[in-house]
Each structure stands twice: as structure tokens, then as C-alpha cells.
């Protein structure tokens, strides 16, 4: 199969969809000839023109609202925000408008839009350009939340998100943009709400999101050398959440470690841990659930401090061993 990068997979998913469907267009800051802050839309304005690859003023609230209004009246916009931190500026539009319109209007009207945005730390961009705020939006009924971890997943999930009739917040991890994977050339869709077991194991379940999927896989490989078999589950979408796959895995392994990059306090890992505590899998647990997440500080600039802020491979190994009383 053909290998392309995560970034190319995002671009390909959008381009193929735009060739198929006239209603799909992209809007965002510097997405035109510049190609977007991370180069995701590079070359697209040449193919689709400035009407459908629509460069906007720096107006996150305005362009989010314009996307919602266009979706409500028949378009299927893809809104690119340069950094996921900037969703704070578009929050009224996404949370008070997009998420609630259908419900408030008694089921009349729909808002089929995707807000794509790069999240995560590791680039030295410091406190206002490195956050993972997915728990904020996952808290809001009416929004779907996607966090793809591989080139293959990002293409299929983006198609599903564009085809979905609801507002979808689609987080692309900036450190994953250059990672490569096998990606089919043709269009395909990965349903929202379907987790993926990235590695099978029997001793412990690691539920990891976005870049943490890769760190969890690395940790699992290390643990294997010590005779510990870890299963890595990637939920892929936080809303809807595939609780069934996670419950099944934990019931099998009897141990759970949840790991994400977002600040641990109030992070989505708490939701996953609680969901397991409330489920039939609780009876199978042989150890307390462990949660790993970002430190309770803004993200620091210094590269060493920045690394300390978020879970690394040794932290995951340590947490797994603690659940096995092997620490």
C-alpha cells in the first residue's frame, strides 16, 4: 500500500470530498496561497480557487459564525483554525450557537460543519499555542469530538466528519503531521464512535489519545521485553465514545491506564476512568485505575520543561507497572 503523511492524508480527504461535493468548502486564516499555518491546504487554492479555499481575516468568532450560518443554510464548511488554542476566541459561536441550534429549534435545521485545528505541545510554541482543550468541547452536548492518531485514521475520520450532519471538532496533532502510514488512495470512511485496538494484549489496557497512542505503543513494546502484555486502545472519537470496546478490553485485562496530553485535572481521562468505574468492567479490576495527563501548569517554553509537562514513554511504563505491583 501507498505511504503518505498524516498531513497529506488530511489534505487528500478534503480534496477528494471537494471534488465530489460542491457544497464542501474550506475557510480559515492564511489557508490560501500561504497554504495554512502548517501547510495542510498547500496547493488547494490552485485546484479549487479562492471561493472554495477561502482566506479569511483574523476573526475567529466571525469566521466560526460564518461557517455555522453557511452550514445552517445548505453548505458543508470546513473551518480551519490555525492553533486549537484559538477555539477560545470562537467559543461562543461553537458552544452557544453551533452545538445548540438543532436542539433549541426543536430538531429543525442542522449544522453540518467541521472545525479542524492542530493541537498539542512539543513545538516550543509555549502556553498559548500548545494546549489540548478537547475536554472543553467534549463537555458540550451537540458537538462531536475527533482525535485521530494515524495517517490512515485521519483520512477516514475526516471523511466521516465532513459527511456528518452535526458540528464536529476535529483535532489534528501537530507532531503527527509528518508521521507516515499506509493510506488507501480511494475515499473511505471510519465511523465516528468506533475505537481501534492498536495493539492487543492481556495484562493491562492503555487507553490513549492522539500522540499518546504512539507513546503507549512504544511503552507496550518496552513492557513486552519484561513479559508484560499491554493492550492499547485508541478511542479515536471522544464524542461519541465507543464505551463497548473499552469495557471489553478492561474486562479482559483487569487493569486500566488512561493517558492523554491534556491537563489531567478535569481531562477526558477522568470521564473514561469514571465510565469504567460505573460499568460491569469494574468487577474485573484488579488494581486502581491510573490516569496520566498534563501537569497543572500552563505549557512552558523551555524544551525540557515542556517535556516534563506531558506524559512520556517512561511515565506510561511506570504507571503500567504500578497497576501490576511491579513498580
Amino acid at each position: 500500500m501507498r505511504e503518505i503523511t498524516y498531513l497529506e492524508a488530511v489534505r487528500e480527504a478534503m480534496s477528494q470530498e471537494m471534488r465530489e461535493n460542491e457544497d464542501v468548502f474550506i475557510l480559515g486564516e492564511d489557508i490560501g496561497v500561504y497554504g495554512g499555518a502548517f501547510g495542510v491546504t498547500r496547493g488547494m487554492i490552485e485546484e479549487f480557487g479562492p471561493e472554495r479555499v477561502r482566506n479569511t481575516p483574523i476573526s475567529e468568532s466571525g469566521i466560526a459564525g460564518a461557517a455555522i450560518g453557511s452550514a445552517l443554510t445548505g453548505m458543508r464548511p470546513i473551518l480551519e483554525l490555525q492553533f486549537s488554542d484559538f477555539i477560545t476566541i470562537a467559543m461562543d459561536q461553537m458552544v452557544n450557537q453551533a452545538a445548540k441550534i438543532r436542539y433549541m429549534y426543536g430538531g429543525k435545521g442542522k449544522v453540518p460543519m467541521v472545525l479542524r485545528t492542530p493541537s498539542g505541545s512539543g513545538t516550543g510554541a509555549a502556553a498559548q499555542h500548545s494546549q489540548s482543550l478537547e475536554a472543553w468541547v467534549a463537555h458540550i452536548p451537540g458537538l462531536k469530538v475527533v482525535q485521530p492518531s494515524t495517517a490512515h485514521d485521519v483520512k477516514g475520520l475526516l471523511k466521516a466528519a465532513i459527511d456528518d450532519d452535526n458540528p464536529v471538532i476535529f483535532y489534528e496533532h501537530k507532531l503527527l503531521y509528518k508521521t507516515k502510514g499506509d493510506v488507501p488512495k480511494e475515499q473511505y470512511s471510519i465511523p465516528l464512535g468506533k475505537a481501534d485496538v492498536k495493539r492487543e494484549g492481556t495484562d493491562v489496557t492503555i487507553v490513549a489519545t492522539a500522540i499518546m497512542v504512539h507513546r503507549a505503543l512504544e511503552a507496550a513494546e518496552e513492557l513486552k521485553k519484561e513479559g508484560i502484555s499491554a493492550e492499547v486502545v485508541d478511542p479515536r472519537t471522544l464524542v461519541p465514545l465507543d464505551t463497548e470496546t473499552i469495557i471489553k478490553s478492561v474486562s479482559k485485562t483487569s487493569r486500566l491506564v488512561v493517558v492523554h496530553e491534556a491537563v489531567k485535572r478535569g481531562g477526558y481521562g477522568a470521564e473514561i476512568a469514571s465510565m469504567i468505574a460505573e460499568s460491569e468492567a469494574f468487577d474485573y479490576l484488579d488494581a486502581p485505575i491510573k490516569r496520566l495527563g498534563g501537569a497543572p501548569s500552563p505549557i512552558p517554553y523551555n524544551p525540557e520543561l515542556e517535556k516534563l509537562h506531558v506524559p512520556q514513554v517512561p511515565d506510561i511504563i511506570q504507571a503500567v507497572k504500578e497497576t501490576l505491583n511491579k513498580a
Partner: protein
Amino acid sequence: MKDLKVPERIAEENLVELYKQMWTIRYFEEKVDQFFAKGKIHGTTHLAVGQEASAAGVCALLDKEDKITSTHRGHGHCIAKGATPDKMMAELFGRTTGYCKGKGGSMHIADVEMGNLGANGIVGGGIPLAVGSALTAQMKKLNYVTVCFFGDGATNEGSFHEAVNLAAVWNLPVIFVCENNQYGMSGSVKEMVKIEDIATRAKSYGIPGVVADGNDIIEMMNVTNEAVERAKNGEGPTLIEAKTYRWKGHSKSDAKKYRTRDEENEWREKDPIKRFKESLISESIITEEQAESIRKEALKGIEDAVAFAEEGPMPTKDDLLTDVFA
């Protein structure tokens, strides 16, 4: 119509209908006010008594396919855009027969089929949505216009400035209608804005800004007509400032300590319905007797709406989780 200068598309019978519509809006609001006082409706509401001319005058120039976005004070816009008071009242009563099946209430009435993209509980929240609706019209080459209603208070929100700029640079078919009713809750426009006319703000975005007497339905129709023509001819957005006044308080809990009774009485003298009636009679379009029977018909319509609302079933537990997602 010898002295009455109205847009060409407005015929005499339209004027009579508009006169009735203004009464319908007023009686709807008065009825809602009474129900709140009696505790018959819960939650809160924002009434547009005294502001009927801008809703009716602007929407008179719109076709069914044209769109509007509205505000927390949106009952008038809703009626003017063709909603039936029956389903509106049912919504305020929280019934499944309401426009939003009882889930939206006063601040969220929408009638997407009639081009009403919804009232809004967030001040300025609907302005970017209107720009998005206008973007659809431009991209799909649909010849509709979108009217965006908001108050004076909303023009201090970032969403106003972002949205107007966006509409201006993209030359979108949208009409921004600022109903300057002099107060954002208790904040007088004189204290919250340093310019005399909010319409002046249009200049910063390179679009025309027009000041109109918001209590004069004829003037509202004329300025809207021009803005609609501009929008439909691809000449982009217009900002219209309708100077008006809300007779009632901001919401049901307002003691109106921030303004004088003298000021209120001055504005009551400029009653938009009374002024329109006088014009219609002096133009011999209707007689005093006809005016009176029209008023009664409007009142009867609202009483019927109440009866409809009261008959509607209440939502049940099964309705709680429906329509969260499409």
C-alpha cells in the same frame, strides 16, 4: 397614495396588512407580559412593544426565501417574517406544538422554513450567522438577502465588528439592522458609545450606514428597499440604524430605575402604530372605523393563539434527549 412615498412593490393592501401586523406584534407582547405577571409563563422574556415599525417595515421588503437572524427581543421579527402567533405562543407555553417543541422558549424561536434562522440569547451572537447565510447565497448563486437584526448593545460586541468586516470584504448580500432602542439592559447608549449615530460605524468597514426613524414604518421600508436592491445587485452589505425605544423594561424583572418616566412618555408620543394609522387615514387608505376593526381582528388573533397554546401537549421525558444530534 398621493403623499405617501413607499417602495414600488408595496401596494395599498400591503400597507393595511402591515398595520394589522403591527397590532399583532403589540398584542402578542402585551399578552405575554400579562402572562408573565400572572406567572402563567416561566423563564424570562424581552418585549419589543414600541419597536413594531422596524420589524414590520424591514420584513415587508423580504420574500419567503430571504432570511433573517433575530435577537433575544425577537417576537416582532418572527411575526413579521411570517411566523404564526399560535406556534409562537405554544412555544412560550413550553408545548410540543410550539416552533421548537417547547425546547427553545422565548429567546430561541426559529422558523427555518420561513427563512427565520432564529432568535438568539447571546447579544451579537446571531450577527456572524447572518454573514454565513449570506455567504451561502453568494456561493450557491441564490438570489436571497439576509437581514440581521441586533440592538445597540450588540454593536460593542466583537462579533459585530468581525461579522460586518467579513461581510464587507466579501461583499455579501446582507443587511445589518441595528435597532437602537437606547438601552442595552440598563446601559444607556449615550454612556456606552461615544458616537452620535451607530450607523457611523459602517464607515470603518467601507459600507454605507443609514440612520432611520425606527418608529416610522414608511421610512423603514424605504431604507430597507434600497439596501435590498444593493444586496441583490451584488453591491454588498448596508448598515441601517433604526432609532427607536422599548416601552417595557429589558426583561420581566426590570424596575427601569435607569430612565425617567418623562423620557418614556416622550417616546410613547412617537408610537409607531398611531403614526402609521394617521398616515393611512389621511391618505384615505382606511377609515377610522376600519382601523378599529383591524385592531380588533389582531387582538382576536392573539386570543386564538393563546387558546391554541393552551391546548398543546406538554413534552415528556422521552423528548429530553431527542434532537441533540441530527
